[in-house]
């Protein structure tokens, strides 16, 4: 089974030359570390920066240069700053090519829940609802099951939704899956995970066609 780094490495393979990419907090943030260095990619952060670079060296932090996770960052040559309305114009207007974000639940119809658990302190959706409602290309990075071992790939989401019918692809610690009209189509499995194990860990309809290849990481 993959760890978080493994998931990030597999998703990094989906990032193509010339892409503008928005990375969510958590596993998605790690993806930036594993993108091939022979391609040109720009990372957008919805608080208002395009062309995000790595964290600053100690002593060079600038309170006025942060990412959406409120972390201090740097910018790369060619970077730009802009206001929040313009930032979401990039997202809503589908100028950002790829959105990678985490989820608590994904349903076989592409619905996603990742912002609220009833009865628990609600932090808010931030930019997640704008991102999932707008992006043409959304990849969800998450564990296949929750801490209690229950499937996070469901027939229907049980938690309040972030967006409807929007997820296209999911990369978990067990598998790569595509959301199709008929449910989750299994594309690849983690090197040491059997199709049987993935079946047991998936509540939603799982489509298995032919031999399922192992992931290359």
């Amino acid at each position, binding site marked *: 089974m993959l760890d978080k780094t493994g998931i990030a490495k597999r998703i990094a393979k989906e990032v193509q030359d010339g892409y503008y990419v928005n990375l969510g907090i958590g596993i998605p943030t790690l993806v930036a570390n594993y993108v091939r260095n022979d391609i040109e990619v720009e990372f957008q*952060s*919805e*608080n*208002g*920066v395009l062309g995000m670079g*790595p*964290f*600053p*060296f*100690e002593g*060079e*932090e*600038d*309170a*006025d*240069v*942060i*990412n959406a*996770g*409120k*972390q*201090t*960052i740097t910018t790369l040559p060619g970077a730009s*700053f*802009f*206001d*929040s*309305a313009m*930032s*979401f114009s990039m*997202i*809503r207007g589908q100028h950002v090519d790829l959105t990678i974000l985490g989820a608590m639940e994904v349903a076989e119809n592409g*619905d996603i829940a990742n912002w609220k658990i009833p009865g628990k*302190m*609600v*932090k*808010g*959706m*931030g*930019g*997640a*609802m*704008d991102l999932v*409602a*707008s992006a043409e290309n959304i990849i969800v990075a998450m564990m296949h099951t929750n801490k209690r071992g229950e499937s996070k790939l469901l027939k229907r989401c049980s938690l*309040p*939704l*972030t*967006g*409807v*019918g929007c997820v296209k692809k999911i990369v978990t610690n067990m598998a790569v899956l595509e959301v199709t009209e008929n449910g989750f189509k299994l594309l690849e499995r983690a090197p040491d995970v059997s199709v049987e194990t993935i079946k047991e860990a998936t509540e939603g309809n799982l489509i298995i066609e032919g031999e399922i290849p192992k992931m290359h990481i």
Partner: protein
Amino acid sequence: MINKKVNNISEALKGIKNNMTLMLGGFGFSGIPENAIAELVTLGVSGLTCISNNAGVDDFGLLLQQKQIKKMVSSYVGENDEFGRQMLSGELEVELIPQGTLAERCRAAQAGFPAVYTPAGYGTEVAQGKETREFNGKMYVLEHAFKADFSFVKAWKGDEAGNLIFKGTARNFNPNMCGAAKITVAEVEELVSLGTLDPNQIHIPGIFVQRIFQGDTYEKRIEQRTVRVKD
């Protein structure tokens, strides 16, 4: 030149009353109108409705501590325990809305649009009770422009004409809130003399700003200090 400069902070906040609706710029601690917030705390006005992306953290969101806020309209309030406590106990009304919707409802107010259609939140609880409509096969939610009494924004540099230039990601919601309320109060790190700012570089023209002043101090806190080590 129409002079927007006010002499002090109390002049900048003149007319603030209980139960008003305020817009406050900033994302996390980046680009928040620190001096205006401090003065609101000093004035002790209460029953406020605050439109602001975040709600500060415990020891910084003083307006919350003093229970001056009746309602918050935000997209993310995660880092504030007092906020959570007041929200769960029902002392504080909270309207959580998508971040892009928040920005666009400000911009709509600034630009004279009564409402805008956005795909964000369609099919979720955010869209409950709101008009929806299909355009080109996709569903959208009608979101109304904000109506606010005061807008408090923070810029890097400004001049007496009210022209503003922002710095880095401290820009965020600040430009979108300029001119989106009846009165826009801009505080700047540096109020420069007229003619110093290059007109080509102005982010917000002074027409959107009614009052401008230079803030006394800026703490500029960092919420998540992340660094890398030199090889």
